[in-house]
C-alpha cells in the first residue's frame, strides 16, 4: 500500500491531476480546486491509501502538479 497526500488549500485548480488520473481526482465545482476522492481530511491535508497498481500513475501526477502539493509515500 502507498499513501497519497494532498495539501489542498494551495491547489490552483489547473486540472492536470484529474486529467492524468480521473479515478482518484475530481475538480470541485464548488471552489474550483482538485479533490482527492475517498480521502480522509486532517487539518486541510487530504490522505488516502492506494494499492500498488496506482503507484506509478500517482507519482506521475505528483510530478505534474505545478504547485507541488501532491506527495506519494
Amino acid at each position, binding site marked *: 500500500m502507498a499513501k497519497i497526500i494532498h495539501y489542498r488549500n494551495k491547489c*490552483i*485548480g489547473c*486540472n492536470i491531476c484529474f486529467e492524468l488520473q480521473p479515478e482518484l481526482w475530481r*475538480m*470541485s465545482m464548488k471552489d*474550483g480546486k482538485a479533490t482527492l476522492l475517498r480521502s480522509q481530511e486532517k487539518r486541510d491535508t487530504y490522505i488516502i491509501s492506494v494499492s500498488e497498481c496506482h503507484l506509478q500513475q500517482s507519482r506521475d501526477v505528483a510530478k505534474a502538479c505545478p504547485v507541488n502539493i501532491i506527495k506519494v509515500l
Partner: protein
Amino acid sequence: MKKNNIELLSPAGSFDSLQAAINAGADAVYFGVEQLNMRAKSVNSFGVDDIARVADIARVNNIKAYLTLNTIIYGHDLQLLRSILTEVKKHGIDAVIASDFAVIEQCSQMGIPLHISTQANVSNIEAVQFFSRFADVIVLARELTLKQVHDICNEVRRKGIKGVSGDLVKIEVFIHGALCMAVSGKCYMSLHTQNASANRGACTQNCRRPYLVKDAETQEELLIDNEYIMSPKDLCTIGVLDQIIRCGVDVLKIEGRSKGADYVHVTTQCYREALDALESGNYTADKIEAWLRRLSTVYNRGFWEGYYLGHKLGEWTSQPGSAATEKKIYVGKGSNYYPKTGIAEFTVETGSIKPGDTLMITGPLCGMVKEKAQKLVINGRVGTEAVKGDKITIPFGIKVGRQDKLYKIVEAANG
C-alpha cells in the same frame, strides 16, 4: 497637464502592501484572491474572506480597490467565480480586472464595473471600442509605443467611445515593474518546461535564468552575448512620465503584487511625487535622478523605458535576481505594543542589530516604515548589540503585533 484626473494604481499582494500603497499616496489598489489571479502562487495571496476587509480599508482611506480575476477560466472555476463576484458586489469593490470572457460575461450580468486586463492585449482603437461595451477602463498591451498609446487616447475622445458607466472609456498603461518576453503576459514557457501555467498564475519564471544554446546533433554549445536572453529589464518610466501623461492616459499602473511592502511604498511614493511635480511644474532632471536612485533601492532587474520609446527588445537584464542597491535582512517580529507610551517591542529571531542600523518594519497596520536605530534599548536597557532572543523596544506611533516583521537594511553587494 491634467494630473488631477490621473489615477495612480498600486499593487496590493498583502495587507502590508495595501497599507504601504495607501501611506505612499496611491489613488487605487488592485489585489487578487484564491487561485483565479495571475499571482496564484504568491505566498500572501488573499482569500475570498479577505474581500470585505480590503473593501473596508479602501473605503476608510478613500481609495479605490479593484479585484484582479485575470487568469484563464476553466469550467470547474465558474461557480467559484460566481461566489467571488457575489462578494465583490456585496462589499462594493470598485471594479474587477479581467480578460477571460466568462468573467466579462458574469460581471456584465451582475452589473459589476469591469476593467479589461492587459492580458487581453488591447493594441488598437477597434479593440477598445469592442471592450467598451462591457468595461469602463481598458489596460493597454505593454508592448505599444507612446505614439500608439497617444493615437488610441485621441481616438477615444474624437469618437466619444463611452464605457458602461456612460463616461468616456478610460485608458490605463503600466508605468513600472516587471516585463516579460511574452506579449503582455500570455506565456507558455513554464507550462512547457515544468507544467506550471503562467496563465493560471503559476509562472516559475524560468525565463529569468541563463541559457546555453546547444546543437542537438553535435552537442556543441554556442556562445550568446548575454546569458539572460529571455529576461528583460524592468519597466521604469519616471523619466518619461511627462510624455506618458501627454498621451492622454487616465490610469497609471505599477506592477508587483508578489513584491514586498517596501517595493510598493517606494515605487508608489516616487510616482506620486513625480505626478505632483508635473502638476506644479517642478518635474526636473535633478528630481528624476533622485527618484531613480530611490527606485533602485528596491527590487528591480535594472531599468529601461519598455517599448514606449520604440526601442527594440534587447534591454536584457544581466543577473538572475534583483539589482536593488539595498537589501532587507529579516531580523525578527513584533511581540508587544504599549499604546500609552507608544513603544513597540520586537523579538530578535536571527542576526543582530546595532545602534545606527536602518531598520524597516512592515505590517498590515503600518505598511512599510523605515527608522534609524539611534539608540538601542535591549531588554529594557540601552545596549550596543541585540542578538537572537533579545527584545528591543522603539518608539513607534502605530500598533505592532506578531504579523509585523522587522528587517535590517544593508547595502546590496551588487549596488
